[in-house]
């Protein structure tokens, strides 16, 4: 249950914060979830990482699909030197996912550290 909660809450919170805060809002969401939802450290990372990856990945894919991947083709060529929209979508979702996961881990370890 906690895994599912953090899987869902983290990306939604990250997205909501992103409406007002800069690009690092998924990190803040991850930190909050890591502190607030007690799980084993590994699960804390995995749930926030996966949740953000899937939700952000879906949202970015929808944007790119609506754009016929015109932009993704060009930016992927710029960033990865290959015309590969899916790789760009993966990287674009992977960054907030990694930030969310590491931050959740940081939050969780912080809680464990101060409890002791």
């Amino acid at each position, binding site marked *: 249950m906690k895994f599912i909660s953090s899987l869902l809450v983290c990306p939604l919170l990250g997205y909501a914060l992103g409406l007002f805060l*800069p690009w690092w809002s998924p*990190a803040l969401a991850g930190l909050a979830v890591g502190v607030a939802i007690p799980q084993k450290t590994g699960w804390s990372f995995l749930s926030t990482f996966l949740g953000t990856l899937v939700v952000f990945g879906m949202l*970015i894919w929808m944007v*790119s699909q609506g754009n016929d991947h015109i932009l993704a083709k060009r930016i992927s060529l710029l960033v990865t030197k290959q015309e590969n929209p899916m790789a760009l979508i993966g990287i*674009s979702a992977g*960054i907030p996912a990694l930030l969310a996961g590491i931050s959740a881990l940081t939050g969780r370890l912080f809680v464990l550290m101060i409890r002791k």
Partner: protein
Amino acid sequence: MRFLWFFLVLSINACLLVALGTRKFLPLDLGSFLSLQEGVWQNAEHSNASFDDNLTFSDLNGETSVYFDERLVPHIFAEQEKDAYFVQGYLHAKFRLWQMEFQTHAAAGRLSEIVGSKAISFDRNQRRMGMVFSAENALAEMEKDSTTKTVLDAYTAGVNAYIETLQPSKFPIEYKLLGYRPEKWNNLKCALFIKQMTNTLAGYDRDFELTNAYRLLGEQDFRLLFPEIPDSLNPIIPKGTAYPKPLEAITAPSDVDSSYYQRGDVIPVEEEFKPDPSNGSNNWVVAGSKTQSGKPILANDPHLGLTLPSIWYEIQINTPAFNAYGVSFPGLPGVVIGFNDSIAFGFTNSGRDVKDYYEIEFKDEARKEYFFNGEWVPSNIRVEKIGIKDSLDYLDTVAYTVFGPAMFDNRYQNHLTNNKAYALRWVAHDSSNLMKMWILLNRARNYDDYRTAIGYFNAPGQNMIFASKSGDIALWQQGTFPLRWKDQGLFVMPGRDSSYMWKGFIPAEENPHSLNPEQGFLSSANQRPADTTYPYFIPGLYEVYRPYPINRRLSELNAISIRDMQDLQNNNENVFASTAWPLLDTYLDRTMIDSDEKKYLDIIQDWNFQNEANAKGVVCFNTWWDSLYAGIFYDELYSKATPIIKPEKFVLLDALKRDPSYKFIDDIRTAELEDLTSQVTIAFKKAAKTLSSLEKEGRLTWHVYKNTTIYHLLKTNAMAFAKSGIKIGGGHGIVNATQHDHGPSWKMIIELDSTTKAVGVYPGGQSGNPGSKYYDNFIDTWGRGEYYPLLVMQSSDIKPGSYKWKMIFTSKQ
């Protein structure tokens, strides 16, 4: 242990945030750049995006409706004329903001602010050339005129109205890529844009190169290599036209032999940034007597560097005062090339030399005084502050003289000694209300209005072509052209006194022109405007061969249609090759050619002298000619410590046709005496080796060899935003002037029938956003040599279904 884990993970987290949030470790701040909510994804325009909008602004006085057609071309219908310019500014910014700002930053020598210290030399060149000085002078003159000021103010307000509503997440991609933000627009930027175009079209000069060539070669060889007039001249104003006695006469200073025509040391100035000498255009106009409809047809295709976003933005502006359609420059109000309900107008570059250098002697290193008319006179010091991204400002001090800025001094070119410097005298520095020309052309109704309008334009000198619904056709070469004694300004001039200064300008009424000629057509293709009977000395860099097919076809054709004019704009005839071929054919020693080499000769023999996309003959011919050119000239010209500027292509062809024992034929590096037969044959054998390599690489076909590419303005730094490998013919000196990255940037044909019929196309798209399907959607049509019908909307045409999107701009009370 938990402490350790926590701090370890915290450190990783911090490193990740720093790595993704800065450009210290990665070339891009990927966290922000790829962010869904603030990064490039915000620029991914939905393929079915709507451009409908309702906007209110306090700067507006009435209502303005903008109807977009399916190509995203806006048709502005404004109740108030001033509002139309406001809306044009808003639309330019909405679709082309980054381009507008980047181009004006480049004009002002401010690229270092964006890209860092690698642009310092470019920025210094712009500042030292006096680009900002020139724009300030123009703006002061433009703002003295209340009409021009009103137009500029309204346009600027429109641009800023868009910038003010722009959220950082919606900044154009290039701002995100380069990591900066837009600044407010102002009228000076409009002036800077004009000056950037002036530099593009009237900034090329060869004064230093020709001076050095003269000093190294001497009078006789110099005249052989750099003739003023080609044998094959096909001038704009037909040969044999009688010119009246000149209103102004001018003579050379008495010491010209000792002070001007002198052998001696070369000038060690190195010019790093020069405009492309290919910048030019075609335009022509046909009278009703030669057209199918009985009404005039006007055609124009300006040849510029092909870029994305395109330099052009198509637009219709309808106000109570006028209804103009055509292309505009993002960065300037009005329609620049186009037509209205009464007339059509277009431009080609005059190619005239309006830029000279004077040798100055400063009193000392401080450059506060220079020697002039027998005394030390104070210079005006202008300190140029060049901002550099992530670094301290660079200060460059430029001394202004009576001639203009001392562009080249020892602070800029350290080869210069003895406090010598070279000051620039350029027509572009002179104040002029240039903008007024377009304001008036957009509303011109007849020939007289056109004449009044073009009188406001000083530089870059243009061949301004005109047609009216009333049946007039005309062409004026318009601009401010210095009055020169023979050879004045060909070389760097002494600047120690006023004797070598420009003494005035050719009276405007004596500029080459024609109105309703008997032949029923007029054309220009950057060639010399007039033959030797024109009573003024008019040096420049002129096209030789491109006018031929134009004038021949216009002369042959009758009952001309728009379709005929399209074919002419797409004409691929290579006049140079067909003129040169008999010579090569005659002098090639075929007994020296082996079977492997012969196949390339066969390709040329079978070629129809058309630079078609799939032609191989053009690659074979060009390689052969280039090899011959190098064999004949390089030994004499490149064997010296200072290489001599290459003579133009026509020089060798004219010379060899005239004299098969031309002085430069022998290769002075060999013991043998080469004749034309041996040079042509050696050149062919060398060319065959090159062609064999090209064939192995699959590059023998013209379009593959040429690889027509439309670069993004960031050039090779943004190839992802460019389009290359466009299958198209043409080339340098061809009516279809498409080269590798240069060519017809807008092709337009207008038939001035009772209902205007017009077609046009440019290699780009209306949107400057690489994330939009409207970014480059015209390129394929352009590449196929096809056109779009231009939808000239009238108020009565407007009904649901006649447009795709509608933006309404209203006044905020």
